[in-house]
């Protein structure tokens, strides 16, 4: 069982309640595909990913970024049992999508950078720690059903 402090709960709820899921999702996935180009292996059907501009302008990337962020919402709303809430998603990523779990950390790091840029000085070290702890719990839950 993950223990959350009051500060951590409030921080996560606050960040996500104010977040533009479409925009942040788009930017985070774009950044991931540019900074870690091998992650493009999972998006062969997305068409033009030849360079940073193409990736940023690709509507399939934008749409999928939003899908991923909305998936995070499940964890925001079930902070006391993220493991159970993500059981199906974990099976999906393992059995159907065959995503190497190392990639979850790469996307999480890009999401952290995007949120940091948006919040500026509001993304204090304590807020960063809470946000990264949340993402680590999500990653652990997503990896749980792999075998």
């Amino acid at each position, binding site marked *: 069982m993950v223990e959350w402090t009051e500060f951590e709960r409030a921080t996560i709820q606050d960040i996500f309640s104010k977040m533009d899921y479409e925009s942040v999702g788009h930017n985070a996935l*774009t*950044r991931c595909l*540019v*900074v870690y180009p091998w992650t493009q292996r999972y998006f062969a059907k997305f068409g033009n990913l030849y360079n*940073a501009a193409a*990736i*940023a302008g690709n509507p399939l990337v934008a749409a999928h970024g939003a899908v991923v962020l909305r998936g995070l919402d499940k964890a925001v709303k079930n902070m006391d049992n993220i493991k159970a809430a993500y059981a199906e998603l974990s099976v999906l990523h393992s059995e159907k999508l065959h995503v190497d779990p190392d990639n979850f950390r790469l996307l999480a*790091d890009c999401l*952290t*950078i*995007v949120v*940091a*840029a*948006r*919040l*500026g*000085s509001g*993304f204090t*070290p*304590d807020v*960063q*720690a809470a946000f*990264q702890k949340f993402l680590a719990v999500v990653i652990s839950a997503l990896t749980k059903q792999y075998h």
Partner: protein
Amino acid sequence: MSLTAKDKAVVKAFWGKIGGKADAIGQEALARMFIAYPQTKTYFAHWPDLSPGSESVKKHGKTVIGAITAAVEKMDDLIGGLSSLSDLHAFKLRVDPGNFKILSHNILVALAVNFPGDFTPEVHVSVDKFLAALSAALADKYR
């Protein structure tokens, strides 16, 4: 994942933009690391105060970022250029090299917070590669 001519140009240009803010970036990156990755504090048990605004964090942040800034000019031979720093980390400090990645991440976060418009995905990938190459050069003498 070696540094291309484009990577070097991007890093040099971006580091030029950072200018006088470099010391503050170094301090902020260290502060973020100590709070988000508390295990990294084990290397600084001899400091009286590890809080974000402390003199120790300020001074050491400046030292670290100063070395990174110097490395921007040594990108054509990081292993040669960082040889003595590698000796220091390998034989005296003995910092587990996994921590170089952790500090690099916190430098990237500090850059994103302070230069949101300039720290584009293209700049991000080149700076990430530079820090990774620097970390490898720093770990060169470990074994």
